[in-house]
């Protein structure tokens, strides 16, 4: 055998060995993909972080005001934090357009059987719908807060609700009444966002606690609140704070769009 041919033969053997190990790596990688999952997002993350991660993926999420309908028990009153005050709604429903990744402060007062208590849930939008044009407000994301949620929050507990869109092929074949929202409770060790992902497409994270907003404690006016689009503000704002000259022209993209 000539030296040149011997060298080529050695190269071929080396190449075959490398290809063999590369194929082994590929097999192990595929096996790992099938077996292991490292979840990146949880409901325990700070408010707004899940939505920000959604926005970082790109797509038609940024800048879209997703209609949201917040419903509280009958008799209670719901208010949405808009720019520098809580915009109160007469009925127990509030409709508003919210941005994906925005965290919106709300307030529930006049809770039946819980006189004197107020609860301040937050709503974080993490996805959007794609309704037919002109039907956006007919199909909002329903955020239903029950009496039990409010009572647990008043007792000092922290309730997290992940609202998800049902997969039509996996949907329960049962009727659903208007204003009703089926809820599944998960126990310790389970993440509601992960559980909701198995059932459909997570749309919003609702955090219900009993804390008074920090900005209210500090006497601030809620600067930095995500832009909000009120669809049906009914009652006049009775708790509006006097706006300073700086607040009349808020810098950047913040404030209420009417």
């Amino acid at each position, binding site marked *: 055998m000539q030296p040149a041919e011997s060298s080529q033969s050695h*190269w071929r053997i*080396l*190449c075959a060995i*490398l*290809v063999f*190990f*590369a194929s082994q790596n590929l097999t192990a*990688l595929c096996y790992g*993909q099938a077996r*292991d*999952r*490292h*979840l*990146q997002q949880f*409901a325990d993350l700070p408010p707004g972080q899940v939505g920000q991660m*959604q926005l970082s*993926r*790109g*797509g*038609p999420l940024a*800048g879209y*005001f997703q209609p949201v309908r917040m419903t509280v028990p009958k008799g209670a009153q719901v208010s949405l934090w808009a720019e520098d005050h809580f915009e109160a709604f007469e009925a127990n429903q509030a409709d508003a357009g919210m941005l994906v990744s925005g965290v919106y402060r709300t307030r529930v007062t006049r809770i039946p059987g819980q006189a004197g208590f107020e609860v301040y849930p937050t709503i974080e939008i993490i996805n959007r*719908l*794609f*309704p*037919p*044009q002109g039907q*956006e407000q*007919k199909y909002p994301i329903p955020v239903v807060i029950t009496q039990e*949620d409010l009572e*647990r929050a008043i007792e000092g*507990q*922290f309730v997290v609700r*992940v609202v*998800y*869109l*049902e*997969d039509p*092929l*996996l949907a329960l*074949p049962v*009727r*659903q009444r*208007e204003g009703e*929202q089926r*809820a599944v*409770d*998960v126990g310790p060790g389970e993440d*509601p*966002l*992960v*559980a*909701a*992902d*198995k*059932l*459909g*497409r*997570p749309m919003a994270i*609702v955090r219900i606690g009993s804390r008074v907003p920090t900005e209210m404690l500090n006497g601030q006016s809620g600067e930095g609140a995500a832009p909000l689009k009120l669809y049906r503000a009914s009652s006049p704002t009775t708790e509006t704070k006097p706006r300073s000259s700086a607040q009349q022209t808020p810098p950047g993209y913040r404030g209420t769009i009417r």
Partner: protein
Amino acid sequence: MLKIHPLRLAILALLLPVGLSGCHSSPWTAAVVPPAQPLSGGGMPAHPTLPVTQPNMAFAVPKPTSAPHPHITQPHNPLSRPIELFGVNSSEPAYGIGDQAGTVLPASFTNNDPNCYPPSDESDQLPARGTPTGGYFIPGDELICDGGDEGIGVAVDQDWTVRGLDSEDTIGHFDTLDGERRIQASNRVCIYAPRFGSVRKTYGISSNANVQQLAGVDSQVAMVEIEEVDITSTTLQNLQPRGQVGSKAPSTYRERTRGMELENRVASSAFKNRFSLFEDLSIIRHGIFDQDEKARLAEGLSAAESWGRIEAPQAVIDNLTVDSIGTGVPAAETVLVEKPEGKPDLRIVKVASAKDALPGDIIEFTLRFDNVGNEKVGNVTLLDHLSPRLEVIDGSAECNVEAEFFVTEQNQGTQIFRAEIVAPVLSGQGGIVRFKCRVR
């Protein structure tokens, strides 16, 4: 001949897995170890060529002891078409959270990537659909679709067993003069009807440390004496049974009622000879396609087709030899059959009365079937496996020709609507079947 240096080939081989590792992305998973299993929509897609049978999903109609002759010249007998249905719930592969199973795209979309749609320039408006310039996903989980033959193709055996009728499938099968049983799928209709649920978790510990114990006894009262003792003065006469009156065991009185068939046979009481606005089309009225109605028909065919996936009506005609596929038994004898020159064919057009619906709304579906072949067909049967979000309203089915309707509950809660056309359908003739559904 292309020559590649062996060293370059080796480097390429080493880099190959690294390049492939980044081909998946999911927002809920780290980029280092992306998942291959779908998080939503779950389940691997079933093999498209393997008919999966699930005997527990069978219709309650008893299987005939001998298969009826498929020839259409036989007098029609509803019981001659019992159907044992074996369905397969195939779910499309999902692509991670937020990229749900079933992506949709506009009807006029021609890009090679079937999951693209144009992005939105105006943040407050829905993106204008129809211009394939983007690369984003529109999930299809907001739609209730019905019609077509998705997943595994439907097959009807010689003994009327229907296989592969997935949820949301709508097909019709018929017999030809030469004894074949053919299947025709309808078009697909999509309705925008999202439904929501929620998952709740409560954090925090609440305990009740309320402990109560006996503090003391204030007064003790002891019995001093027994003042009065009453003795028995009279005794009542005890009555004893004289004899055994009844000799029958209690089991005799048990009501022996045999279970009825699970099928709900609903006869057509009347046919509404008026056409609603959504179905007032020439192809629905007369079965004749009019070019002028093309735009309206396209809108009615798939109410959400502008934002749904391309669902062109397809004809899937299976012959009876499909049963022999996969048996591995070679043919022992070859028989040549001289078929007549006829070309039997059936066309099924399906329209819905609404484009979008809320839970509780009622939607009317119209199925127009026509014999577009050049010979008559018989045993025409329309099958619609409804979505889990739809339920048939009792008594709402009607047809302008003699037909029988059946609604069957499946184990998973879905319903199958079946319309059996009694008389053979001559060439050029057809009919209209209507039924209403409530959105769950």
